[in-house]
Every structure is written in structure tokens, then in C-alpha cells.
């Protein structure tokens, strides 16, 4: 597919050309942190491209999603999926884009999930290559790359005053065609510079782990004492799962509303919570933090491999950076390997 140049000063024009047909989401600075949110005004906002605290997963699979509402006369009202607007996500990190390709098979299943599907099919992903990876990025150890293209429609690579834009899908081609006046053909020089930057980015990933055989090892060490050692410092909060781009567990709850109505909602759940596996009888098959942390590692590095043929982790490093007590998934995996 084509490779173009988009001048940085043309980005607001590009985004506002998108906003005619799309709701544009981008990383936005708020109180010193970056949030992935709908852009209030593409002309006045210069998207910040640091790693986002709230992840793009929420645009497709929101933390709280009303499934339908009901009243006492058994009148049920489901959302109209036609109403969902096309969304363009700008400034998506390659690891986050890749995470959606891992969520897709989960929500495709025998009966595709219409809530997820309707948003996913209407989302357009414009990536921003990680030319400067973060301290805990380890995407290259789980099959990704800081300049990876998986799951993206367009990928921008920062060349200083301009972006090198790779068109990756038909959808992406539609975009660049529609704003063709802003895109110019990339020169051989630009492409060479892009290639060098990609290589440099990949080399600047500092955290690595060789995961060969880890799935097999996990099959053998379920009762190993290493799990207890690993869990000593875990405090059982939900940061690692709620900031994880590949975690998808949810709970379904009925909530009473005003005027004798109610609604059924889907909300994110976390395997780190006691409530997650609590039975109605009061029995809990995962009674302590040991079983819960173990489940998180097993799900990502064994169950997901068994079911969907890939690690359930894109190496974004958020769970490491944001963990209050330095529970580090790379160290956990090293412990697993050590227990083999």
C-alpha cells in the first residue's frame, strides 16, 4: 500500500476533515495526565502522544455498558446499534492497536457480541509509532514491535516536522484519498529515515524476556510454591487488570433506575478481586491473592494460547509501571521459568 508524508502543521486540518464523518478520539492532556477521549475541537487541540492512562479498549469495550433497559410491564429497550457513530482513533500506540486483534476473537465467538462488534466495525485506527519506547515496554518479547502495524488502518511515524504515513487497509486508503490534498508522496529519503527510526525504536526497548516454552511450563507448575512467593507483595487491587489493554472480563448487573425502570449493564470485572469467583454458596475457589495472581498469569500465557493461539499480552508495560508495589509481570514470568 501507499506511503505518504503528512506535515505536522496539517494534522489539525486532517482531524477536522475526519470530524465530518467520524467522532475523533485522541490522547488529551488533563491535570498532567493523558486520557484517550473524544477531541473537543480538533482545530485547537494538539494531540499529546504519550502513553494513555485510560486505554483505547474503552472506546470499543467501555467499562460500563448498558445492555438494555426494562420496566415493570416487561417492556425491554435495547440500544440501536445504527446510532453508533463512526469513530476515528488518532494517536493509537501499536501495542494498543494489537490488543484489539486479541480481543476480537473473544467477542466474535459462536454468537458475535453485537455491542463490541458494532463499535469495532465502525472504528478506524490511526496509529502513532513508538519512536521513544517507555521504561517498561516489552512488546518485542510478546511478538509486537514499537512500529508494528497489526490492527491499524494508518500508521504515522514521527520524522520531526512531518509524519511518514503508511496506509495499511482499504479503510485507511479511503481516509488518505478523502484528504488527498494534505498528503504528499513520500520520497525514498523519507522512507529510509523511517526505516532507520523503526530499527532504532526496536533497539531502544530495554526490557526483554524469552518466552519460549513458557506455556508448557505453566502446564506443569500449577501447585508449585513459587506462586506464593510471587504473590507476597500483591495487595489485590485492580490496577493491572483495569489498565490492561487485553483484559476483557466482565460482570453483568441489574440496576434499578428512577420511575420503576431498571437496566442491565455490563461492567469490567477483575480477576484480582475477591468477588470475581465468589460462589452464591459463599465458597470461593480462589480464596487468596495467590490463586488470583496465578490466574492472571495463566490466562495471559496459557489459557489464551490454548484457546486463541496467542499470548494475551501485548507488552505495553502498564501493569508494571502502575503497580503500587512493583509486582512485575516480567519478574513473575522469570519466576515461572525458574520453576520449570
Amino acid at each position, binding site marked *: 500500500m501507499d506511503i505518504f508524508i503528512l506535515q505536522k502543521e496539517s494534522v489539525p486540518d486532517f482531524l477536522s476533515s475526519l470530524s465530518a464523518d467520524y467522532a475523533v478520539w485522541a490522547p488529551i492532556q488533563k491535570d498532567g*495526565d493523558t*486520557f484517550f477521549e473524544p477531541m473537543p475541537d480538533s482545530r485547537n487541540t494538539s494531540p499529546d502522544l504519550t502513553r494513555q492512562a485510560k486505554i483505547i479498549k474503552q472506546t470499543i469495550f467501555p467499562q460500563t455498558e448498558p445492555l438494555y433497559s426494562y420496566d415493570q410491564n416487561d417492556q425491554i429497550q435495547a440500544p440501536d446499534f445504527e446510532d453508533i457513530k463512526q469513530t476515528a482513533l488518532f494517536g493509537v500506540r501499536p501495542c494498543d492497536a494489537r490488543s484489539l486483534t486479541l480481543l476480537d476473537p473473544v467477542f466474535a465467538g459462536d454468537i458475535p457480541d453485537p455491542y463490541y462488534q458494532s463499535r469495532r466495525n465502525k472504528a478506524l485506527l490511526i496509529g502513532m509509532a513508538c519512536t521513544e519506547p517507555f*521504561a517498561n515496554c516489552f512488546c518485542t518479547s510478546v511478538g509486537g514491535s514499537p512500529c508494528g502495524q497489526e490492527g491499524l488502518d494508518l500508521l504515522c511515524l514521527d520524522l520531526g516536522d512531518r509524519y511518514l504515513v503508511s496506509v495499511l487497509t482499504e479503510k485507511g486508503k479511503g481516509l488518505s484519498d478523502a484528504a488527498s490534498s494534505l498528503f504528499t508522496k513520500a520520497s525514498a529519503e523519507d522512507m529510509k529515515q523511517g526505516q532507520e527510526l523503526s530499527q532504532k525504536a526496536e533497539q531502544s526497548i530495554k526490557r526483554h524476556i524469552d518466552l519460549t516454552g513458557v506455556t508448557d511450563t505453566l502446564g506443569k507448575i500449577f501447585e508449585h510454591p513459587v506462586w506464593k512467593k510471587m504473590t507476597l507483595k500483591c*495487595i489485590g487491587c485492580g490496577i493491572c487488570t483495569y489498565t490492561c489493554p487485553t483484559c476483557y472480563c466482565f460482570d453483568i448487573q441489574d440496576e434499578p433506575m428512577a420511575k420503576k425502570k431498571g437496566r442491565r449493564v455490563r461492567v*469490567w470485572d477483575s480477576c484480582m478481586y475477591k468477588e470475581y469467583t465468589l460462589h452464591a454458596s459463599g465458597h470461593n475457589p480462589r480464596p487468596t491473592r495467590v490463586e488470583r495472581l496465578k490466574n492472571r498469569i495463566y490466562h495471559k500465557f496459557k489459557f489464551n494460547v490454548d484457546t486463541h493461539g496467542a499470548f494475551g499480552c501485548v507488552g505495553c508495560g502498564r501493569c508494571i509501571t502502575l503497580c503500587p508495589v512493583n509486582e512485575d509481570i516480567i519478574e513473575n514470568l522469570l519466576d515461572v521459568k525458574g520453576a520449570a
Partner: protein
Amino acid sequence: MSVQKLKEEAARALGRKDVKYLIGYKKGSYGFRVSPAFIEPKEDIDQLIMSPLCNMSLVKYVMLEEALPSLTEQEKKPSKIAIVARGCDSRAINLLIEEKGVPREKLYIIGVSCAGAIDQRKIEARFPRVTEPAEVTEENGNYIITVNGQVHTVPKEELLAELCKLCRYPTPVIYDKLIGDKLPTKPFHYDEIKAFEALPLEERFAFWQQQFTKCIRCYACRNVCPLCYSTICSLDSLSPQWLRRSVDTSENFMFQIIRTFHLAGRCIGCGECERVCPMNLPLMKLNRKLAQDAKLLFNYDSGTDPKTKPLLTTFHTEDPQGFIL
């Protein structure tokens, strides 16, 4: 403060017959992070560290300990946990003892005089993308920071956690052994709370509304709090369900109000809730308001003396009653 001294005391503690393990700090897995260390007798004490990077409270681990399956098994095992405690941590321990959350005999406290800890966000903003283990020492009001073999000097003021600037009890108030010199207790002041209270109601409400909209309800603020140790927490209760699982501004308000009120007259001001919040919510603004009220209305400073009773379990006829309808 000498790390050597700490290691000696740790070795002495672990040599005691009644201590089962020690909780201290060790180097973390990357950059400026430190990690809790759980060391059993005869395990390596050399991994222990104490530096301005030790910014987390270890007291929570005393309350998180999983009970052993049978009483006989419990009797056989040595009972004490040795713990490294800074000034704020010792106040938390004090309050736990006052509240009968943990018996004094269960703890062997190695107190450490603390000159304040570094704010992780500040140092990572100053030295971004540091993966290799870094070291920090304090010298004459400066932090000497070694990153990738290069030495940097940064004024302490620039990296010190904001809350540590307000710390009143840098020296532990309860301990079995104290390491480091006794530092003076600092005066009480809540200027930033008074300034916030002076704002119009609408403005304060809008502020919290904006903050709580960001909350993702990971409950890290609750889980990390050394004083949140209910075995059945109202936030987890399913029947009745006090708090909806829906995450929106209204439910988030409810969550934070429950969390804050449970710390009324209790919060000892370690700031763990604020430190761990992935959304960077200024939670100590709420906690410090309550601490200010406890001080101004009842002249009560939580956790400063294990012999006093918790504020909300006492009544004196001279207590102010102006807020009773």
C-alpha cells in the same frame, strides 16, 4: 541513616526465636522503583535497602497476612513479624494497636527516622525512561542520583513528595529499635485545606466532579491503605449492594465518600492512597480535611500514642456539639 545499621538490626531481629519473617525494602525491578522484601530467618539480609526512594508503606502487609489453616499450626510457628517502619508507618501501627486490629506483641518494629521520600512521578518526569536500576542518596539538602553510571545532583525540594513536606512525625513514635537520629516533630498546619475550603461550594463540587469522573474503581487506594482492613468491606458487599458496579461520576462519588468517611479521625497521613492512584486523584485533600477537623475540634492526632483510644470511640462532655442537629 546507615543501611549497615539497619542490616545489623534486621539480622538481630531474624535471629530471635519469636520472629517468623521481616518486611523491609529491596531494590525494585527497574529504574527508581523499590520493592517490598519478605525475608525469612537465614535468608539474605544484604538485599535490604533504605533510601529516599523507599516511598511505600509496608504496614499493609501485616494486615494482609493470610491466617494459617489451623490453630495448632499457628501455635507451633513463631508469631512475630519484624517490620521496617518510618514515622508515618509507625503512626499507622499505633492506630492498629489502639483499634485492636493487631496486637502489639505480634510486631517487632525496626523504626527508621525518615527525612522524606521521593515522589515517583516527579523523579520519573525528571529522568524519563530509566530501566536500569538507579540509586539515590541524600546529602546536604540535595539528592545525589546515579543513573546509568552518571551522577546528578538535584535539590531535595524538587523531588520530595508533597505530602512529606507536611510530615509532622519524621521519627517513629513506636519502635523496638530505632535507627537514625531523632528528628524534631514539626508544627501542625493545614494551609492548603483552608485555602480549598475558602472556595465557593460550586467550585469545590466542580473540582471533585472532574476528579472523580476519572476514577476507574481499581480500589488501589483502599487496598493499599494500612487502615482499611475490614474483612468484609461495604464496597464488596453484594447483599445489600451499597455501591453499584457501574462506573460513573455518581457512583464514584459514593465510593470515595465511603472510603474517606471510614478514615475519619483515623487517617494518619501516609499518603499511600494518593501515591498509588493510577488516575492521579488528589485523595489526600479529603483525608487531610478530616484530619484537620479531628485536630481542631477534638485536639486529636491519630496514631501518635497507642495508649489513647480511637477518636470515634470516645466521648467527653466538653466535646464540641455544634454540628449535632
